[in-house]
């Protein structure tokens, strides 16, 4: 049995705001019978049409699905539409104290229903908004393609949930979105998305670093430069040489002049010297400072 917190059990056994609103301003629906859980969220606004006056729900699902929906209605009621749009699945989980990791998708379902209803309020989609289904909406980016057919989960949803919750592996994606938790056939696809998004993040970080550098803002102190050179040699350069039976030792740094000593197999291989010097220099210029030159301290 799951280890549900007292608050989850309370919201399951005594759910707040169950039922329909007769004339709702918006309805958000997520999930279906086949998936094993579904949520229908009803919102009614105040006269100014800016604040959510009443939120009610109907849920088909397990204890945590019912508790998450109950928590969602408590969180949404009283907020302006703009404030409510900021609510995330984390807010729902936090409100409940905690949810078992495997049940995080219940809180995601709550967030999605709310987003679907708000989309409707803002007139962004006609009729009852449905998220996560194979809707017929125009999809120029191709993100609404179904990745997980067992639970009808789109690439868009998986990407959004990965980004919002900083997910790092397929297991986590299953817990948060259910995608991959059925036949498992789409697990490689999910891994690909994770890899792609990781690549995108790293690329972004690199570009950011470069633009800072390009602005000439990044000026290393001498101490920083020395330790960065040592670190680069230890971590980026030496391991490659050692694999070939050689080694490299940092002897001295004088301004932009880096003196190193080549050892072992490298030292007794004359033809290697020039290429090696160039390679070490290129590496240091790339990773530390583009003005660096490398000189070799010869044996004896």
């Amino acid at each position, binding site marked *: 049995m799951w280890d549900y917190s007292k608050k989850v059990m309370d919201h399951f056994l005594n759910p707040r705001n169950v039922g329909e609103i007769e004339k709702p301003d918006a309805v958000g629906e997520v999930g279906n019978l086949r998936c094993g*859980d579904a949520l229908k969220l009803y919102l009614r606004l105040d006269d100014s049409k800016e604040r959510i006056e009443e939120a009610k729900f*109907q849920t*088909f699902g*397990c204890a945590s699905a019912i508790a998450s929906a109950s928590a969602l209605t408590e969180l949404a009621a009283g907020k302006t539409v703009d404030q409510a749009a900021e609510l995330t699945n984390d807010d729902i989980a936090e409100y409940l104290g905690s949810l078992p990791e495997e049940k995080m998708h219940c809180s995601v379902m709550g967030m999605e229903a709310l987003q679907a209803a708000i989309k409707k309020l803002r007139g962004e989609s006609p009729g009852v908004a449905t998220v996560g289904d194979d809707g017929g909406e125009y999809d120029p980016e191709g993100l609404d393609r179904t990745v997980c057919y067992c639970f009808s989960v789109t690439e868009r949803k998986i990407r959004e949930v990965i980004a919002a919750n900083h997910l790092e592996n397929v297991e986590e994606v299953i817990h948060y979105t259910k995608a991959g*938790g059925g036949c498992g056939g789409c697990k490689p696809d999910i891994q690909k998305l994770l890899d792609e998004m990781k690549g995108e993040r790293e690329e972004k970080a690199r570009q950011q670093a470069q633009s800072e550098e390009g602005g000439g803002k990044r000026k290393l102190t001498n101490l920083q430069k020395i330790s960065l050179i040592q670190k680069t040699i230890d971590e980026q350069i030496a391991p490659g040489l050692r694999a070939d039976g050689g080694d490299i030792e940092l002897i001295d740094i004088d301004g932009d002049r880096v003196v190193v000593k080549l050892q072992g197999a490298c030292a007794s291989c004359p033809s290697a010297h020039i290429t090696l010097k160039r390679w070490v220099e290129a590496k240091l210029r790339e990773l530390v400072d583009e003005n660096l030159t490398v000189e070799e301290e010869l044996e004896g």
Partner: protein
Amino acid sequence: MEKADSVIYLDNNATTKVDPAVVDVMTPFLTEWYGNASSVHSFGGQVRQHVEKAREQAAALVGARPEEIIFTSCGTESDNAAILSALENDIRRRKVVTSRVEHPAVLGLCKVLQQRGYHVEFVPVNRRGQLCMDTLVQMITDDTAVVSIMWGNNETGNIYPVYEIAEIAHQHGALFHTDAVQAVGKVPIDLGRADIDFLSLSGHKLHAPKGVGAMYVKKGTPFNQFLIGGHQEFGLRAGTENVPGIIALGQAMETAGEYIEQENTEMARLRDRLEQGILRTCPGARVNGNPLSRLPNTTNISFEYIEGESILLMLDQFNVAASSGSACTSGSLEPSHVLRAMGLAETLLHGSVRFSLSRYNTEEEIDFVIEKMAPIIKRLREISPFGHDS
């Protein structure tokens, strides 16, 4: 909240209460007679005769000879040992035939066997969970090494025609194994008149403790040991005997023999009372499985438009223990493979509850559960977005 004083335990297909008489019989083997049954000295040696007595008790319940009973650690070990042995027996035969509704102890192994290059075929079932015998007959061929079909299904209680299937397997030179973990002690079993090669059973399903099981290997059936090492269990299963567990299993099986008639009349009557009571008071409820051929203690009922874990947790508030085939209770995201194999409608698939009784249940308990079910189902239907139009 009105709550039962002590737990009303209706999850006996998961595990059972250890019979207090069984505890009494096994306890001296934990405290005083802790010797090793294989020892030469009389302190250990005296234990041996008790182990052999347990073997006779076990054999008697299933109509086997004592030397056909090998004690193991659990039902899963027995299942694995039998199937793997059958595959080793004739390495030219590369096919396993089993059903889509087997216990994970068999299905999980079969998936691994597929990865190892064996050909596994799964016999489908119909909406009542009955095996498609025509397909089974076609699947069993001359390159089939072993056919493994359970005696009684743990989820629906369905009983399968294992005597008949054993004969079909033998017509093609294949060995036959049956996982009878749920059936032993609940239905009469007479292996003396059967053509069954291997049978698995487990102690904790019949009021013995966890950690002990047994397998039957028909005299003359070749068997390659699974646990390799010492000479224990006729050299067929190495490892120092779990003496207290074996003594307990023997006693539990003897007692099961004494109760088997009562299980098929009185317990079946209570099960039917529960089932009828729920169907009468809860709309949108259906029985899963084949009521005409079922274990006497099991009923599996689906409730439309609601989810099983919610039902269980609400029952839990009244101190009632049952189980469900819903996705949320299984730890996976998919509902029961048995109910899916039966092609259950989506509206019913997630809302199944299994009640499995034992001889310790009373009519008062059953009536208490019937009384609690209707309001629970009604409440969850109110919360559900589905099923309001009808």
